[in-house]
C-alpha cells in the first residue's frame, strides 16, 4: 500500500521561522490556488508528481484531481477535520431524527466499526441537510 502522506520529506521552506512549521492535511475540495505544498506528492509507485514548496496554481488543482489525489499537506493551515463540525444550519434534533430513520437500514451493520459509523453519520447529515424523508 502506498502511503497517504509523505512524512519523510521535510521540504525546506523559506520565509518561515526556524523550527516553526504549521502543516495541515487538506482535502482536495478545500484546496485553492496560491496554497503551498508542505510535502512531496507522490504517486503509488513513489514517482514524484509535485515537490514540496510548490505554490499550487489552478492547473495544479485540476492535475491533482486527475491523478486521483484526495488530500495533500499544506503549509500554514491546520488539518481540516470534516468530522467534528456540523454545518451551522443543521439542528441536533434534525440529525437525531435522521439517525432514527436510518436505524432499520443499518440494522445488520456493526456501527461500532469506524467505516459504518462514518457512513451512518454522513447518511444522517445528508438526510438532515437535504430534508430527505
Amino acid at each position, binding site marked *: 500500500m502506498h502511503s497517504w502522506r509523505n512524512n519523510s520529506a521535510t521540504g525546506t521552506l523559506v520565509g518561515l521561522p526556524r523550527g516553526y512549521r504549521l502543516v495541515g492535511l487538506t482535502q482536495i475540495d478545500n484546496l485553492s490556488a496560491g496554497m503551498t505544498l508542505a510535502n512531496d506528492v507522490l*504517486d503509488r509507485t513513489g514517482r514524484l508528481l509535485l515537490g514540496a514548496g510548490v505554490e499550487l496554481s489552478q492547473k495544479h488543482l485540476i492535475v491533482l484531481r*486527475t491523478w486521483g489525489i484526495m*488530500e495533500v499537506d499544506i503549509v500554514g493551515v491546520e488539518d481540516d477535520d470534516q468530522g467534528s463540525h456540523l454545518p451551522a444550519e443543521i439542528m441536533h434534533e434534525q440529525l437525531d431524527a435522521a439517525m432514527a430513520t436510518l436505524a432499520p437500514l443499518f440494522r*445488520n*451493520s456493526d456501527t461500532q*466499526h469506524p467505516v*459504518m459509523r462514518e457512513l451512518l453519520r454522513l447518511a444522517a447529515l*445528508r438526510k438532515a441537510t437535504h430534508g430527505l424523508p
Partner: protein
Amino acid sequence: MASPEHAPITLERLVEQTRTIYSLPYFYERFNEAINHPRSSIADIAKIIIEDQGLTARILKLANSPMFGYHTKVDSITKAVTIIGTQQLRDLAFAASAMGVFKGIPEELMNMAFFWRHSIACGIIARNLATSLRESNVERFFVAGILHDVGQLIMCAAIPDTVGELLALSRSRQEQYHHTERDLLGFDHADLGGALLQAWKLPANIFEPVACHHAPRAAAQFPLEAAIVHLAEIICQAFEFGASGEWCVSPLEPAAWERLGMPVNILATILKQSEPQIGETFDILMEGQ
C-alpha cells in the same frame, strides 16, 4: 422449497437458461478478436464500435463527462481508442451496453430504474475509490460495479416466482437477501452473476469481484477489486442510491476495508465527488434504453 418452477434450481441450469435468452452485446466478441489479431489497426477496432450508433453516442458522452477527467476532448471513437486504450474502451463499451443486454425483466419484482441507479452508483463509487488508490485502468471497476448484482436480474427473468418468495422471506426474516438465497438455493446472486460473466468469457478481473462482492475474502485472484466493489455497494446502500433485492445495508467485511488502507475521512470526499456523477451517468446510460 416448494417451488412452482419444475426442475431443481441449480446455478448451472440458470446460467444455461440465461445464455439462451440473453447474449453478450454484439460488438464484444468481435472487439476481442480485433484486439487479439496482430494485424488490426486502430481504425479496424474503432469500426466495430462505430457500427452501433447508440453505443457510440453513449461512449462519447461518458468519455467527455467530467468524472472521466480525460484532458483532450474525445470527439471520435478512433480518438477514444488511442486516448482511453483498447481494453479500457472495451470495458467502458460493455458498461454502456449492460442495460440493453438485460431487458424485459418483470418490473413487479424489481423496479428497473432503481436497480440500474444502484448498479451505476456502485460502478461510479468503485471507480472513484480505485482512482483515490491511484489504481490505473479504472474502467474495470466501473463495469464490475455496474454488473455486480446482475445475478438478481437473471433470477428475476428465469425463476420469477421463486424470487418473489425469496424477497418476501428475506424481509420477514429480517436477514440479508443473499443469505436467504444461499439458504434456500445453495448459492446467491453474486455466485450466479459471476458464473454467467465467466461463461461469457469476460476477464477474471471483472467476474471475480462480481462473484465475491458479498464475500471479498473469497477472491483468490483479484482481492483488491473485490474489496472495492464490496465497499462501493455498502456505500450505495447507506446513501440509498437506487435499490436492489437487498433491503438493508450489507455487513462490511473489516478485512476488506483494511486491505484498502484508506483513511475513514476519505468517505466524505468520495460521497461529495460521486453524487453529482451518479445522476449524470444514469441519464447518459438510460437514454434510449
